[in-house]
């Protein structure tokens, strides 16, 4: 992750948790590479995993922009994700009951506009009030959106879901025919276990590039925003909203911006998911997605963009890693085991590192403020007691 922060972060400047994360990530990457080379992990499936990680990273970025930056409690991550997924699918899918057949770019724009309007609608009545109101309203919103998708068949196809979704680059010059145009490659690294790169591989590669672009741009935008005076106001609101108000900040407007920004990013994750999975159904709006996003953000360190990225990857690793347990005979089913594992991780983090693995302090030094001092010696001491949940007043 030091790569993302530019070349200036040499290894010695890293804090202990940063080195730890870097080490674990490197080990994990080596492990994946070994699995790829030996053929234990198919390249297409590997790319699918990267895409999924990018998607969870986006979801975590979105929630982090709300909860991590400003302290907004949003329990409708799945709803905004679903708006993105359905918004895009309804515009582009063959089987769409309302529109369909549009270019995915149109789907992207429509999804973002719908998410924007919905965020505004839920923000207007709740963001003037104390934090708990948004929490409750968003809980309701998640369920309402899910039920509409499930029941309004004329609009969403109901429980059948939507099929016939094009890939994102369909209809684009060059890129739309790229997967077919690429020759099937056969790489032999280890004799006896060749690696096949076929059309589906090139297709996945395009998807991965798409999500990496989404996630990369989002990360850079958020990083700048969080460090800036704008982000500083959000952090003030998170810590003490009345103080921000007394200093002349229009906190309602700032909270609204933070909420909308986060919701748009979640919708972006949904748009990507639609064109990765090529099928969306009401099951994609299950509250478990919201839960995963929260775990990722808290695990990574609320307020930290790098942490959100890391948390997103951890979630995907646990989610997909436990699939391999299917092959192993276990006394219990992998699905509850997965949740159990996540529960254990959360308890361990709360017990030993309540501020999360990569708390935001280190990434928050606004460039001009670095001169003559920079980071305090003990980067973690600023968060002696991180807010656990709920508001303090």
């Amino acid at each position: 992750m030091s790569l993302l922060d530019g070349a200036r972060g040499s290894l010695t400047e890293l804090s202990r948790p940063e080195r730890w994360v870097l080490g674990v990530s490197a080990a994990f990457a080596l492990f994946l590479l070994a699995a790829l080379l030996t053929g234990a992990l198919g390249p297409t499936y590997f790319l699918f995993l990267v895409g999924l990680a990018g998607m969870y990273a986006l979801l975590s970025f979105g929630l982090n922009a709300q909860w991590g930056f400003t302290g907004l409690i949003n329990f409708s991550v799945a709803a905004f994700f679903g708006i993105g997924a359905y918004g895009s699918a309804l515009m582009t899918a063959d089987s769409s009951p309302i529109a369909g057949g549009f270019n995915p770019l149109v789907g992207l724009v429509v999804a973002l506009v719908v998410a924007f309007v919905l965020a505004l609608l839920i923000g207007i009545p709740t963001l003037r009030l104390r934090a708990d109101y948004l929490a409750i309203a968003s809980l309701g919103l998640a369920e309402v959106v899910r039920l509409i998708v499930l029941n309004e068949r004329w609009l969403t196809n109901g429980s059948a879901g939507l099929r016939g979704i094009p890939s994102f680059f369909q209809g684009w010059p060059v890129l739309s025919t790229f997967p077919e145009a690429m020759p099937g490659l056969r790489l032999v690294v280890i004799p006896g276990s060749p690696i096949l790169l076929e059309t589906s591989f090139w297709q996945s590669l395009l998807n991965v590039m798409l999500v990496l672009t989404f996630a990369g741009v989002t990360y850079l935008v958020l990083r700048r925003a969080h460090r800036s005076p704008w982000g500083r106001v959000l952090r003030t609101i998170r810590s003490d909203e009345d103080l921000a108000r007394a200093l002349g900040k229009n906190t309602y407007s700032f909270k609204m911006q933070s909420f909308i920004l986060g919701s748009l990013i979640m919708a972006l994750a949904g748009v990507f998911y639609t064109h990765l999975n090529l099928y969306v159904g009401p099951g994609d709006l299950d509250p478990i997605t919201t839960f995963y996003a929260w775990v990722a953000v808290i695990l990574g360190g609320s307020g930290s963009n790098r942490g959100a990225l890391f948390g997103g990857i951890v979630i995907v690793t646990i989610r997909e890693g436990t699939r391999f347990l299917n092959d192993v005979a276990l006394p219990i089913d992998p699905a509850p085991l997965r949740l159990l594992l996540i529960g254990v991780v959360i308890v361990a983090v709360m017990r030993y590192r309540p501020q999360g693995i990569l708390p935001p302090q280190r990434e928050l030094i606004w460039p001009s403020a670095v001169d003559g001092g920079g980071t305090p010696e003990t980067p973690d001491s600023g968060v002696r007691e991180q807010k656990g949940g709920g508001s303090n007043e």
Partner: protein
Amino acid sequence: MSEGALPKQDAVLRVDDLQKSFGGLAATDHASFAVERGTITGLIGPNGAGKSTLFNLISGFYEPDGGTVEVNETDVTGMEPYQVADHGLIRTFQTPRKLEGMTVREAMLVGPRNQPGESFVKLFAAPGTVAERESTNLAEAERILEEFEIDHLATQPATDISGGQMKLVELARAMLAEPEVLLLDEPVAGVNPTLAKKLKDQIRRLNEQGTTFLLIEHDMEFVMDLADPIVVLDQGSVLTEGSPEEVRSDDRVIDAYLGGGT
């Protein structure tokens, strides 16, 4: 109602017949007074007299049940706190407010109002302007920290400084908002005498540079030395108003607040 409250020539803040009740209890009871530009006006009164409530009403945190508040000849009654701040009135809180996860320097930089960098759009559309203002603000913050002799705290986490230092930082930050009138709620409560003296000097100096102050304080020595005039509040209304000498020798004030002999 008290005598001689309203007709002040150049009032930067004017409170007229302000009322606020909390479930039957009149915390502010037809209070009227004005703060003349360029003064350090003291606001004293027993615990529960309604001083902090008055601050909350003036600064827009509470909506009054009746009466008006004027800042710089503008009626700001019922406005949001940020709008009141835009008219040049900044307030601090009785209990120090701590900013988690920020250094003192960063916590200071929240002070300046209307920063271009506080607009999400300008952040990306006009990065030059943003950076420029940010470095001016930073220089100003450093200057004030130095003036307050707390520049050594600049890189400390804002949660890790003492209560007295917190009061200094709050005042310093409020100055960055360039208020015309600054409301301080018990600026030296819990502050040691040396630091209190430092604060007093700072307030006096800032006042000479043009900032008007309205300050609540229980430390009589502090407030009598610093403020003139002094407004005495009792049970939500203004009991009297005058110079420290007048207030100190007023029988009603002695009964209600100062107690015993002078």
